[in-house]
């Protein structure tokens, strides 16, 4: 009995101490910078952080969980509950104009643990910043601006995850800068990093598949072939018209030499992307889209199963329809949304027949979302995919319902 009393006393003492430690009054939310127009490239820092007192360290993160019931051609895996992501950010101001940010992501529980971002930024001038460490390659918009709570859709765009390797980050260095001119912002980024490997054409997907590179466990330790990947982006934003980004990512993906011996010629991956986002001022409709083209030097001796050209993208339309307090949430917004997306993994013609190679997917995702506040979203999606195999045989159809919650914390 004495032990039980001791335990209760100890428990109460510990919990009261812990409560004191998480006293909200000691923590403050760092207000997001709304003084200047933000670009996709600002997304890594443009997040809600929590700071304890005057510590020069801020913490943050987000979590995404969902339920889904999908059915493909009459076959379903039933009711699935998924913890898609838990992401933690730590940022710190090391000195005036020197800062550090890291982002660690746990996907599907702890099935995948990735350092998505871990970079030091040094500002020499607003137009000249140095960034080094694990950087997010700025190809398209989604790769940089991918936090779940920002989106009305449970799934990430197919073109971003099944054609481009979002979220793709690599070790390297680069420069970026921005300039503000009245209603305009101009920005650039350019990085040299480690890059792709031969999984691009040697993977379990049986197609040219850039995301397979992410499976290389050594990619943060060494370059697969010693050739840097170049990633660059220019973006401009007009306060009225929206943001337009043009980006490029390219480099050698194969191991063309080893121990000084020539194994193959250098084979390149080149990716071009265009992204655009705006808010229609009259209706407050948010339009956000991205389209990318991939070109891969596939050996002539390889199978046509592996495409030399790919293309795909998405467009999201988000329409706020109800902006009034709901259940006491003062900043509550209900949106309806629609995503249209398409990926063609193998753009070309069969040499044997001259007919088109298919291997594509089209998807339609209507959605309803409720945001009790800007940082939290509950979303209900209905997804319908039409996917054709390489020969263009009758499409496999997948459809179903997804419900999820995503929030910054």
């Amino acid at each position, binding site marked *: 009995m004495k032990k039980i009393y001791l335990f209760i006393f100890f428990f109460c003492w510990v919990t009261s101490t812990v409560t004191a430690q998480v006293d909200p009054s000691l923590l403050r939310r760092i207000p997001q910078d709304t003084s200047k127009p933000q670009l996709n490239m600002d997304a890594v820092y443009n997040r809600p952080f929590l700071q304890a007192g005057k510590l020069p360290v801020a913490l943050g993160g987000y979590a995404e969980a969902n339920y889904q019931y999908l059915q*493909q051609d009459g076959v379903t895996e039933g009711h699935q509950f998924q913890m898609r992501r838990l992401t933690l950010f730590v940022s710190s101001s090391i000195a005036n104009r020197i800062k550090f940010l890291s982002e660690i992501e746990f996907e599907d529980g702890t099935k995948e643990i990735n350092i998505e971002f871990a970079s030091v930024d040094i500002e020499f001038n607003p137009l000249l910043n140095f960034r080094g460490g694990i950087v997010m390659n700025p190809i398209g918009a989604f790769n940089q601006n991918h936090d779940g709570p920002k989106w009305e859709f449970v799934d990430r765009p197919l073109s971003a995850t099944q054609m481009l390797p979002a979220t793709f980050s690599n070790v390297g260095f680069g420069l970026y800068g921005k300039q503000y001119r009245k209603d305009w912002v101009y920005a650039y980024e350019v990085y040299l990093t480690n890059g792709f490997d031969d*999984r691009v054409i*040697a993977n379990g997907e*049986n197609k040219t598949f850039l995301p397979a590179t992410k499976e290389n466990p050594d990619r943060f330790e060494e370059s697969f072939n010693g050739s840097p990947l170049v990633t660059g982006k220019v973006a401009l934003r007009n306060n009225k018209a929206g943001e337009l980004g043009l980006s490029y990512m390219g480099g050698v993906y194969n191991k063309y030499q080893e121990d000084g011996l020539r194994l193959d010629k250098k084979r390149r991956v080149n990716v071009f992307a265009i992204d655009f986002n705006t808010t229609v001022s009259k209706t407050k409709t948010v339009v956000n889209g991205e389209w990318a083209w991939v070109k891969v030097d596939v*050996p002539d001796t*390889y*199978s046509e*199963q592996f495409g030399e050209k790919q293309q795909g993208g998405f467009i999201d339309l988000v329409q706020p329809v109800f902006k009034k307090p709901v259940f006491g949430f003062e900043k509550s917004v209900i949106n309806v949304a629609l995503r249209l997306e398409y990926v063609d993994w193998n753009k070309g013609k069969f040499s044997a*027949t001259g007919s088109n190679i298919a291997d594509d997917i089209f998807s339609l995702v209507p959605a309803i979302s409720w945001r009790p506040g800007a940082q939290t979203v509950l979303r209900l999606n209905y997804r319908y995919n039409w996917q054709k195999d390489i*020969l263009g045989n009758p499409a496999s159809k997948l459809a179903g319902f997804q419900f999820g919650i995503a929030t910054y914390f």
Partner: protein
Amino acid sequence: MKKLFIIFFLVTGIVACQKLLPGAPGDDEILDGPIEGLTAEQNLVFLRGDIAFNDDVFTPANGLGPIFVATSCASCHAGDGKGHPFTMLTRFGQTDVTGNQFLHLGGPQLQHRAIPGFQPEQIPAGATFAKFMPPANTGLGLLDAVPDAVLAGLSDENDINGDGISGRPNWLSIPVYAVPRPASVLQNGKYMGRFGKKAAAYDLLQQTANAYNQDIGIASVFEPNDTYSGLPIDPEVSTQIVNDVVFYLKTLKPPVQRNQQDADIQSGRQVFLNTGCGNCHTPQLTTGFSPVAALSNRTFFPYTDMLLHDMGPGLNDGYTEGSAATAEWKTPALWGLGLSKNSQGGQYFLLHDGRARSIEEAITLHAGEGSQSKNNFQQLAPADKARLIKFLESL
């Protein structure tokens, strides 16, 4: 009243959700799926084989090549159906039946693709060759379970009945790992082949082990040689996986005929028989005993006799396999013919090398032992031709 409304909306919601989910295609619309009557244990093995056949992809890291034709089984047999010219095989050899003289030069199959850094194979000088369209995989277990005696009974090597048709088995030496069927019929110590365009594979194990090796460049305990070096290497696929794939192929369901009660289709079947097509494309066979009960003693409708027939000079590619002469081809099963387009990208690529772009063209390319039937077909009234084609498309 309020409760009624709630129930109404719940039911409406459930029905709407069901409508919004894509249903399964009809059993007669697809080739994939197990034969009826498998036990739970057999279903598990079928699923393992299904995954290995349809999902496993080979890369250099797990044994692909270095020279190869395809990177997975499913690459050549989309939805378990016929292949496409993009996955066509080429086999090379010579014109006589003394055995392939080019095995030391990479025969019998051309691996015309290679992983980076390697050069694909070339057809050696002096070799003849034929192109082979990958066949559909369905119903193979039933064909495998037909007793040799049944096929021997259909054979008429010397055309004793004088109908101009002289089907015969391809007599083969079987690989050491093949287990002869009970009550095998032999000729000069050789066994009846029954799989492949020229019936050069004895059973589904030989067919599967050869396909792993010759199509994908994967060595197994059954076919242990590397196709590039010709040397024995460690197995790159487990015996368990090969056995699972064999079981999967054995237990894939036979294609289901569509619209069997349609008057035109029934009439077309009669036209088919009247024109003599059924003399080689034997409509009905019956299996003997099989350890898989679902395959045992079953009557089925494959429209093949599994025998070799001389198809005339137009289809003579100058290439032999086993005892099959250069113009001889095994009667292909016609079941599933109407679903070919669904695995061939919406087009027909028929006959052994896909040269026929329609059923009618395939018929008119018949010669040799098929001449009489072709002539009969060509003399049919347009309406009868249409009914015959409609019947074939229903298979």
